Each structure stands twice: as C-alpha cells, then as structure tokens.
C-alpha cells in the first residue's frame, strides 16, 4: 500500500472508532472512560488528517489550503474502482 492509501486508511479507522464511540456517548454522555477514548482517537484522526490534506489534498471543502485550482473536482472519487 502506498503512503496515501495508508494515511487514508488510518483516517477511516479513526473515523469509525469515533463514530462508534459517539453512538455510545449519545446514550452514556457522562461515561469518563468513553470520553477519554474519544479524545485520544480524535487526536490521532486530526494528526492523520492534517498530514493527508497537506500532502494529497482535500477530504472536504474546508481542507482547501490556497492552491491555485479547486482540486476538489479531481478524481478518483470514492466509489471508483482502482487497479492496485
């Protein structure tokens, strides 16, 4: 796997952990253990996302960093099959 895919996969892993933990927190909003777990993975996600977006471009509109084209439109899009 190249670095871009590794980073994207790390972001997706963190995102899924955050989603799962947020769902738990929705019904257990005072659970200290879950809050700490969320915070730890939020830090990991932000770090991976910062690295990804500075090297490979946008994951969402507001990741724009002053490039001279709107790189948002560049493929491949997530649903497209790519030869490995």
């Amino acid at each position: 796997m190249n670095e871009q895919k590794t980073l994207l996969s790390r972001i997706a892993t963190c995102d899924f952990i955050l989603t799962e933990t947020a769902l738990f927190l929705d019904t257990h909003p005072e659970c200290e253990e879950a809050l700490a777990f969320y915070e730890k993975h939020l830090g990991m996600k932000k770090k991976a996302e910062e690295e990804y977006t500075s090297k490979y471009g946008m994951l969402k509109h507001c990741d724009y960093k002053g490039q001279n084209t709107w790189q948002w439109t560049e493929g491949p899009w997530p649903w497209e099959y790519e030869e490995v």
Partner: protein
Amino acid sequence: MWIYEKKLQRPVKIAKADPAMAKIIITQLGGPDGELGASMRYLNQRYAMPNDKVKAALTDIGTEELGHMEMVASIVHQLTRNLSMSEIEKSGFAPYFVDHTVGIYPVDANGVPWNAATIQSTGDPIADLHEDMGAEQKARKTYDNILNLCDDPDVRDVIKFLREREIVHYQRFGESLEHILDGLNSKNYYAFNPAFIPKK
C-alpha cells in the same frame, strides 16, 4: 461519507404557529418537487457521471439538499408548536394529525407519502442533467406558489432563501450539462448516452 453539522444552513425562527401553512409547506419535504427527492435524485445519479466536475457538482448540491430537507422540516415543526385541538380541527390539519400527530413525515400537500417514482436516475448523464434542470425549476415554482400563499415574514424569509438556491443550482446544472456535451465523442452527433457503451 457524511458528517452531520449541528446547525441549519440558514436559521429558522417562526414566532406564530400556522398549521394550515405547515400542511402546504410540507410538500417541499415529501412532495414531487421537494428537497428529499432532490437529494436522493442527485446523490444517486453521481455514479453514472463520466466527468469529475459533474460528480463534484452532484455531490455538493445533493448534500446541500439534505440541509434544505432539515430547514423545511424545521419550518413545519415550528409552525405546528403549541396547537389547541380546535386549531387543529379548524385549520384542516386533522388528517395529518391523526396519523402523525405533530411529528415530521415526508408527504406532499395532499398527504401522499414521498415516492421514489417522483425521481429518476437513468444512467444517462444527458438525460439526468436535463431532469435536474427541470427539477430545480419545478422546486422554484413550488416556492413561488408558497410565497403567493404566505404572509408571515418569518416564513417568507426562509422560503425566499430556499427559492434562490434553486436558481443557483439550475445554473450549475446547466454548466454541468455543457461539460458533458463538450466531452462527447465527435461521432456522437445526437448526444446518445456517453456513459454506457455495451461491451463487444
């Protein structure tokens, strides 16, 4: 992948309840030219598009329509706050009330539930983008009709904003169609489906 943001695209703050108006405006949630259909139409059509700019436009407009669904639902919710039973009966809101109380359910102004048959995803980018331009005009028409029926400035403010967005989306779909047409093979004089060529 989508992430929810805990805010409306434009705030909705309606001081005065009006269940009769709620019954009319709910068509922009669950009616044939409403926001639920709009988002489902664009987000499902994306996969057949051969042009990256058009994929971006459908993704972004389809996402914005999800936010508009929430705004229309917020209008209906606020128009049906603190109702008395006599207000419900006199306003014509009773048929909705009996099934849904004051919950939000996607129906048109006659109470007919949202139906996927009101949208298309043809797999043909040219057919789809023509539908999308028509859909934006049809939604703009519904907002115009609502403005003709509604005097409350709190409601009109939000409806006027949503109406303007239909006009902007219509422009972007027009440009998207041009991008697709510009990319056609020069032998495709009659603009047949550029996204599906049967395997020989």
